[in-house]
């Protein structure tokens, strides 16, 4: 595989995510039943849909965690079949689980996840600061935090990961008003810096204001809503 060469070719088309008739299976259940999705660089795409529609699986597929059973898929320029390792190191996923170690402190968690991609101490501090965790909470064990505080910590870990594609599954859940503002600001900053974001959320009012495009996920398939703010999306890509 050529992780170095591959992304540039997709950058030309500006496509960060490209799924064609993608099928992904959980056990024997086809959580994704032929999804088509194109996401350009700089977009913030909101995935909307009922429970069990396949939003989570779509995000996990894009993260390289769930294998592509049928169809084609390219994420950040890497093929989802043959270059999953390369995909993984370029995306950041915030799933239902936070991926935190409850016995470690907030700072230690962020340091650990930052260190997996070689983030510096300055970047760690900045990530903590970004999610409002720099002061009092930094030294508290994650196991003692509330659900919302854990979510913030997980977001700070994600910030430290410096991913090209951010995949967020219900990121607003459990966050208070300040946390949501910080999250939105973080995502906008990431996009401004060249990243792309996909968000699955039920909180349409909140996430809808953030998104440049809304996409409906129903029954394991994706039907793009070209209405909302497609112009913004294409503007972001160029």
């Amino acid at each position: 595989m050529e992780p170095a060469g591959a992304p540039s070719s997709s950058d030309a088309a500006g496509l960060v995510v490209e799924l064609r008739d993608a099928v992904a299976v959980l056990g024997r259940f086809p959580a994704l039943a032929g999804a088509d999705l194109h996401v350009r660089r700089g977009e913030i795409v909101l995935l909307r849909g009922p429970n069990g529609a396949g939003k989570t699986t779509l995000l996990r597929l894009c993260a390289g965690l769930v294998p592509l059973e049928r169809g084609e898929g390219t994420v950040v320029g890497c093929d989802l079949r043959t270059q999953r390792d390369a995909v993984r190191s370029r995306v950041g996923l915030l799933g239902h689980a936070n991926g935190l170690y409850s016995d470690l402190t907030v700072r230690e968690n962020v340091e650990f996840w930052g260190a997996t991609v070689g983030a510096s101490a300055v970047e760690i501090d900045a990530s903590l600061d970004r999610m409002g965790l720099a002061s009092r909470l930094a030294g508290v064990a994650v196991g003692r935090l509330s659900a919302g505080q854990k979510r913030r910590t997980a977001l700070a870990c994600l910030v430290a990961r410096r991913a090209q594609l951010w995949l967020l599954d219900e990121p607003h859940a459990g966050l208070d008003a300040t946390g949501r503002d910080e999250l939105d600001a973080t995502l906008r900053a990431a996009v401004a810096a060249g990243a792309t974001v996909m968000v699955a959320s039920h909180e349409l009012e909140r996430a809808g204001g953030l998104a440049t495009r809304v996409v409906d996920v129903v029954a394991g398939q994706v039907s793009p809503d070209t209405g909302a703010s497609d112009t913004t999306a294409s503007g972001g890509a160029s």
Partner: protein
Amino acid sequence: MNDTASPASGSPASGSPASGSPAAASIWRTARLVAGKDLRIERRSRVIVNQVLPFASLVMVLFAFALDNDEVLQRTAPGLVWLATIFALLVVVQRAFAVETADGALDALRVAGVSPPGIFLGKSLALAVQLLVLELLLIGLAVVLYEATLTATGAVLLVTTLLPATTGLAFVGTLYGGLAAGARGRETLLPLLLFPVVAPVLIGATRATEAAFGVGHAAIDEGWPWVGMLLVFAALFGVGGTLAFGPLIEE
């Protein structure tokens, strides 16, 4: 705002982080990171110290109840030490992977592109350190409870035995623990897979420890060939595990 924008802007341009290349240096960096993380978790939670060490000690006492004979205990002390170690190994391995699966950290490690060989070596290292502490305690207990005797040369042999035996146990524990981590029925699958594999370590380490304790008229010299076998075991499963761990935890 500007502070976070700069790291974020750094990433898309810089492309794949260091973890993308399976270079030895990167693997070692990951291994140290993972091992440090695991040991720090243990230092904070003290699960091994507060629960597993008492459990293993209890097993040693139960052996004494079961065998009920001082001479037999003295004769079988080495075997009982290693048997207790292997029971404890099961618990420690399950703990080591419960930490990873409790909140989806194993998934997060995979998404972070952390190299599986690095995870394998790191978790093995942390496991080995914890096992070593456990074994030292059990040997101390054998001296106290079972009247095992240890000379200076015996101690040298014993320490030389502990290192490869512990490393080998840690390698196979991590390997099969990782395989069972995501599986249904992991609690029952793990011993089925693990115990046949650790049999050579049980045999080798027990014989070497017998020589070190001088039980059954075993001479010190009889222990050294077993140390060689333990080394071979550790080396084979170290290499095999490094190669196999990635495919095994892949979903």
